[in-house]
């Protein structure tokens, strides 16, 4: 799988960040799975989470490298499976938390 240039998310992934990065993500579509580096992310809001889900579901998908914070937020809000390939088995992550 050919990887496009990595798109790096800032620490603060609020709605403004989502709006700012969306064009970049769209521009990177069409050449394989998106590579998103979210290792610096310490805060995330709904807008960015939605974009990450959209990225996963568009074209060839996306590979997201997540920070502990992002992983955790996703798990608590039932989005683990949706965002990460290596999600723990079983869908209802939230209930198990």
């Amino acid at each position, binding site marked *: 799988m050919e990887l496009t240039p990595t798109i790096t998310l800032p620490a603060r992934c609020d709605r403004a960040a989502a709006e700012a990065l969306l064009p970049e993500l*769209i521009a990177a579509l069409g050449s394989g799975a998106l590579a998103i580096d979210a290792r610096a992310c310490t805060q995330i809001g*709904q807008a960015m989470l*939605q974009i990450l889900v959209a990225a996963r579901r568009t074209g060839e998908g996306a590979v997201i490298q997540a920070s502990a914070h992002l992983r955790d937020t996703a798990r608590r809000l039932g989005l683990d499976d949706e965002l990460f390939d290596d999600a723990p088995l079983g869908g209802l992550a939230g209930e198990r938390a």
Partner: protein
Amino acid sequence: MNADEIQAIFFAECEESLDAAEQGLAACRAGTHDADTINAVFRGVHSIKGGAGAFGFVALQAFTHTFETLLSDVRDGTVAITTPLVNLLLRALDTLSDHVAAARGLGETPDDAALQAELTAAMAANAGSAPAPAPEPAPAAAPLVADDDDEADPMSDGDFAAMLDDLTGAFDSPAEPAPAAGRIVKVRPHAGAMRNGSEPLLMLREMLDLGATCVECDVGAIPSLDTIDPGTGYFGWTFRLPADVSDQAVADIFDFVGDDCSLAFGDGAAMPAVRQPEAPVRLVQAPAPAAAGTPAPSAEHTAPGAAMPVAAAAPPAPPAMGQSIRIELGKLDKLIDAVGELVIAQAMMAQRLAGDGLAVTEELTMLEGLTRDIQESAMAIRAQPIGSVFSRVPRILRELTASTGKHVRLNVSGESTELDKTVIERLGEPLTHLIRNAVDHGIEAPEARLAAGKPAEGTLTLSAEHRSGRILIRIADDGRGIDRDRVLAKAIEKGLVAPDAQLSREEIDQLIFAPGFSTAATITNVSGRGVGMDVVRQNVKDLGGRITIESEPGKGTTFTLTLPLTLAISDGMVVNVGDQTLVVPLANVVESLRPDPSEVKGLGANRAMINVRGRFIPVLPLHVAVGALGAVERPEQGVLIVVETEGAGRAALLVDAICDQRQVVIKSLDTHYRSVEGVAGATILGDGRVALIVDVDGLVAHSLADIGLCEAA
């Protein structure tokens, strides 16, 4: 509208909420325990909590949460309303007010641990049991220590960073004992919930705090990356609620975003639909998450306010606030300034027309009437009920009760009396001091009161009323009254009066306003706040007002503040004195007369009294006071204006002639030149000249002292 502005609105609303809660609790204390009263208190605290959550004021939110939980028990009737409980709630309200101030950056965050424990102990769940620590470690301090790699970010007001920082912590906290059975709630935040710095995830956090667990997140509505709109809410969450969490508790969390977040309760409820922001405002119907035929048993409902079909996807309309709008003060001041100029321009035109022999025309009269209407309306915009100042008094009294042990009952009347915002703002300090003074020095200790045959509880009466273009504020206590012997002794000791001086009762009373006669050193040992009564008098004088005292030993003392309704425009009598034109404020004028020579009694070279219907009044030649040249010197040749003053009784000002009576726009001398004794300010006349406005009180008191006359009353 940026985040700061929204926050400013939040704080303004906090003030209103605090006021409402204060009033409600005051009513409770007075014995009104009905549902409306309790609800008003609950709503006040609740709306602060909602905003605190959205802006990420963690400490404020944690405290309001505990407070609100107890209030909710009270509302539900599971906790009985008793005097100790009301007192506890009042203390909680004071702390809440401190929390709000801290969130504003106006003070330290109060240490509320003990109070929170008390509130918690009072809750229905803990009734009878030992005081427990806060029930659910509300997001107090814990979330601040984020559990990931992030540096512990101190809360910077309303900062998104700080808000989201604690998300992780919150998600971590309670979820462990997920109750197997529980009701389902479906949550779909819409665009509005993500706008203006609002963040749905913060509300979800609150739900997780309540013990809810996420069952699933519906991402089916998410479009492809190239068509996604970052501002639309696509996620729909399904949460399972613990059995002990009511639907209302969940709805309350989302109350703050109202219609912008759809909720559906019950297992069978369908997930509310995604709302596209493009949806035309008018067409949005009640955001029925209308779904596949299941009329949900417990019915989906959106958060309160949803019944109104308006403003669903509309631009974030502020929540309906009755028939009022908020206006930036600067804009109002501009309007007032412009109205002031209009009044001057109108006067100039009238003068010009009069010069052309067109003094009385219908059009001019109409214009004059309109100008006055506009001016009154403009002033009315700035006018605020004095209740906003009075509402702070209960707290002051509570603090005084705590420090002095004197219980004081408060009677308030006339709180809807309106006066200019500037006056209101500057009234707080003198009023606070007078109230402290009344409780510290006036009202006796309970034992002394009982011994004197009075009820143990003191009474403080605050009243406000309009009287002839001014406002009268009275602060009356039923205490011991001014101990004139001690005041006089103290004044003699301080060298303020000669040891052999013969002073009238009123003069002795006035001594407490003397600079250097500081309260800290007198009568009792309380006070010591660094503000003396002389500052109070100065404050009131700066507002163009007067302060008077009536005191009856053993019965109590009444301070009366007489204040102008506005500081900007007043009615004045324009007079000529030699080569000068002066304005005498109409508020002081009693009458004007041309004396008959037989009515004037000369007393030596330059002193005279006039007999006005059997009452002798000193004549004060205004030209002497202002140093005008070529003025009329004999009373029978000029006009006498009889004025009423606060401190020196009546006096008759001798002027050459009265030219006009009109509204004058007051321009401060202090800001343009410096304060001048006997002059209240200046104004611009119709012909463009500047005229001084006479400070009648100051001038009369000063001049009479000089020539050694006073009213022979």
